[in-house]
């Protein structure tokens, strides 16, 4: 804990309000250049290599889905009682990843955590791609894909409406809203930066594309006024949305009667877990991008450290929820409930359970140490372990159902090749989309980063001379 004292001492020397969020004291122009350069420079070879790998994995996804549509979901390792299997595990995993982006862009905005400007664009993009990956799974799992429109309240020839009392239908609305709101939020944030790219565009095609996308933004304060209000409103409504989406996901399980699934803490517990895993994914990506594009001043240690602290907090919340579930399972006096939990910890899937506990509860506790939470190598490994752990959390919840009320139906769920192929494929799709984003859009919100630079404050005293000279 001595390091905590050190942090404190440092923080006291630089009061929170005056600390530098962006290190290296760049000028406005340097921010523009540093970020735009990534988009404008020639595509690096490494990008092609990575894109080649991830798009091959995407191809695997397409093949697996095509085969699935041809054969039906029998190609997966599903059977009653584990009727959802990896499809729902992956769905929950990917939707959860997205939550960090919304938390960073909305909740931290409302809390005036200005360090978020470094990572919000990046995290919002991640949200959108994660939600796209997530949405694949319920869509391909419906069986009769050609009548997938039944999930929407569209008048159809049967005269039947969707069942609004089903949590699976709530998912349709929750995910639809989540995807739309995330996309709008991201786009609104991009408008000023797209205008920057438009002004810097060197060829006509880029000029037209960025020009149309930026809607002819000219940065007038009369525009900014409404823009800021729209941004504030989006942040304010996206905040309860973060809570609601994963809560509704949790209800897919929790409204049932099944021991281990039906428990009232599921909604907040899922939300905490989602933010936890999402931050881990942002961390993994940020460390890679930082190394690849030399954005060390923007994705600086202060930002990374705070993300680690958020993982510590949410990881502890997840730990709290595990403890509550276990205690109440015993306290309920319900033998099925108790069996479900003992079976998780010591049954055939104990290996998965202990992976989950070590990755989700133990790993984040190392972030108490200042040394470890500012160590790039450690946090990179920890972020990957946390994502593994969070994937296994959903796996444990879903597959321990293989021992339910009816012992004659007990079995051991094993994913097939095609289950795994789709999981790998979804990672391929995620990274392909992310690489395209890095290539064509500014990965850091330039206008917001400029807004938190010291010289952006109209009461800023220093450096004025230099600016005036630059103009004339």
């Amino acid at each position: 804990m001595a390091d905590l004292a050190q942090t404190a001492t440092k923080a006291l020397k630089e009061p929170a309000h005056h600390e530098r969020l962006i290190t290296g004291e760049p000028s406005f122009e340097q921010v523009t250049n540093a970020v735009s350069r990534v988009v404008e420079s020639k595509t690096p070879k490494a990008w092609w290599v990575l894109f080649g790998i991830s798009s091959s994995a995407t191809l695997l996804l397409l093949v697996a889905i095509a085969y699935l549509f041809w054969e039906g979901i029998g190609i997966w390792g599903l059977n009653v009682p584990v009727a959802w299997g990896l499809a729902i595990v992956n769905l929950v995993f990917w939707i959860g990843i997205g939550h960090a982006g919304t938390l960073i862009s909305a909740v931290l905005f409302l809390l005036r955590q200005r360090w978020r400007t470094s990572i919000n664009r990046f995290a919002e993009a991640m949200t959108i791609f994660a939600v796209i990956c997530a949405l694949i799974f319920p869509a391909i799992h419906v069986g009769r894909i050609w009548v997938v429109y039944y999930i929407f309240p569209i008048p159809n020839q049967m005269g039947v409406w969707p069942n609004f009392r089903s949590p699976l239908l709530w998912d349709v609305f929750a995910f639809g809203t989540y995807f739309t709101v995330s996309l709008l939020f991201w786009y609104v944030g991009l408008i000023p930066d797209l205008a920057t790219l438009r002004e810097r565009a060197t060829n006509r095609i880029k000029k037209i594309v960025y020009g149309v996308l930026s809607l002819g933004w000219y940065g007038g304060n009369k525009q900014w006024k409404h823009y800021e209000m729209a941004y504030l409103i989006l942040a304010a409504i996206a905040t309860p949305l973060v809570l609601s989406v994963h809560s509704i996901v949790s209800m897919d399980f929790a409204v049932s009667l099944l021991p281990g699934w039906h428990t009232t803490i599921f909604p907040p517990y899922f939300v905490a877990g989602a933010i936890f895993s999402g931050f881990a994914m942002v961390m993994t990506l940020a460390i890679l991008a930082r190394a690849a594009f030399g954005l060390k001043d923007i994705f600086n240690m202060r930002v990374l450290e705070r993300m680690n602290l958020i993982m510590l907090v949410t990881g502890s919340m997840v730990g709290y929820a595990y403890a509550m579930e276990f205690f109440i399972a015993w306290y309920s006096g319900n033998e099925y409930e108790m069996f479900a939990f003992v079976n998780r910890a010591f049954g055939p899937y104990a290996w998965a359970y202990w992976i989950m506990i070590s990755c989700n509860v133990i790993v984040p506790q190392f972030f108490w140490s200042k040394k470890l939470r500012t160590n790039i190598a450690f946090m990179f490994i920890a972020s990957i372990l946390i994502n593994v752990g969070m994937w296994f959390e959903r796996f444990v919840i879903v597959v321990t159902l293989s021992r339910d009320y009816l012992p004659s139906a007990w079995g051991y769920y094993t994913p097939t090749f095609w289950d795994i192929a789709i999981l790998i494929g979804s990672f391929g799709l995620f990274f392909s989309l992310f690489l395209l984003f890095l290539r064509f859009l500014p990965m850091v919100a330039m206008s917001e980063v400029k807004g938190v630079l010291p010289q952006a404050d109209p009461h800023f005293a220093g450096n004025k001379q230099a600016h005036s000279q630059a103009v004339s």
Partner: protein
Amino acid sequence: MQSLKISLKVKEQILSKENMKLDRNTYKFTDKGNLGNIALVVGIVGLAASAVGYIQDSHQFYFSYLVAFFFWISVALGALFFNLLHHLTRASWSTAIRKLTESMMSVIPFMFVLIIPVLLGMHELYHWTHEDVVATDLVLQQKAPYLNIPFFIIRVVFYFAVWSILTFALIKNSARQDIKHEDSILARMRKYSAPGMMLFAFTLTFASFDWLMSLEPHWFSTIFGVYIFCGVFISMLAFTIIMVRYQNGQGAFDGIVTVEHRHTLGKLLFAFTIMWAYMGFSQYLLIWYANLPEETFWYLQRWEGSWRTLSIILPIAHFGLPFVALLPQAAKRNGNWLLMMAFYMLLMRYMDLYWIAMPTHSPEGINYSWMDISTMAGIGGIFIWLFWRKYTSGAAVPVNDPGLKVSMEYVN
């Protein structure tokens, strides 16, 4: 305290305020309104009246007492959480009100004395203490390793030990800081806060299981601790808003604790009103949907007779109305409006606790007793007296805290 060296500019700033009502040397706040003495009288009268009530109807007394006790310890525990959070997040905005919230949590050790009637009344309050009932009830036998009288008392002692140690640790360092600032003092407070927060989460959860959930020993809900936590924090925020307004009303603290601080407290109150509703609705929806008799009976109890009316009013009054009333920015910045909402939310907290605890006492319907009022006044009076005595006995602002200047200049 006379030897205080005025080394920081901020002190000059505090003292230069024309309306400054704090003592020039000790930074003590002298209350013109005599709140402490009034509270003490109310408290003694309330407790005396409740004692009479105890002779009349001990069952009623114990339930009224439990609700009142939990209501007031919520304020103190909320303040403990607030301070832990303040140190952990290195918040700067709340430094100016830190002494106020520290004084609230300073009551915790005294609350250990006030819980004794609950322990004495266990037999009347908690069904699972009846050996003859447990003998015929398999579920209660199963829970007996946890729900038994010795272990219950051990846990009470443990909770109060944890809370008191944390309180002492923070207050002691705060007092040391008043004499001379050293960076290590704040660092030490932060060091306590980290494990303190973890301990707080678990102790509050289990305290709420013990004191409230086990009133219906068959019922269980994993979210219950979090639900109660939201209520605890609301109580503390509402109480803080009232006290901040009270001292600002006397012209003290101008330029130190401002509308900006009240605005932020208002925002937190608004946010946690939503959180409370979220937790409450999650619990209700899942139990309603699954429709398992071992869980639904708790809500069905609250659907009996006049409890039904209260069950319908609660979400509207505790969430719907304050949501609308606190939504606009102007509402959080208007002093009188926010004050009114703070009083209102305290009333709502009382209503929620009443709704949780009392159906066990009078299952047939609401049976409001004068003892509900006398116990609230009794414990409340003592609580406010103790809190106020602590607050007015030392520096009312952490003058040596380097965060104070930032806090004074804080804008939303």
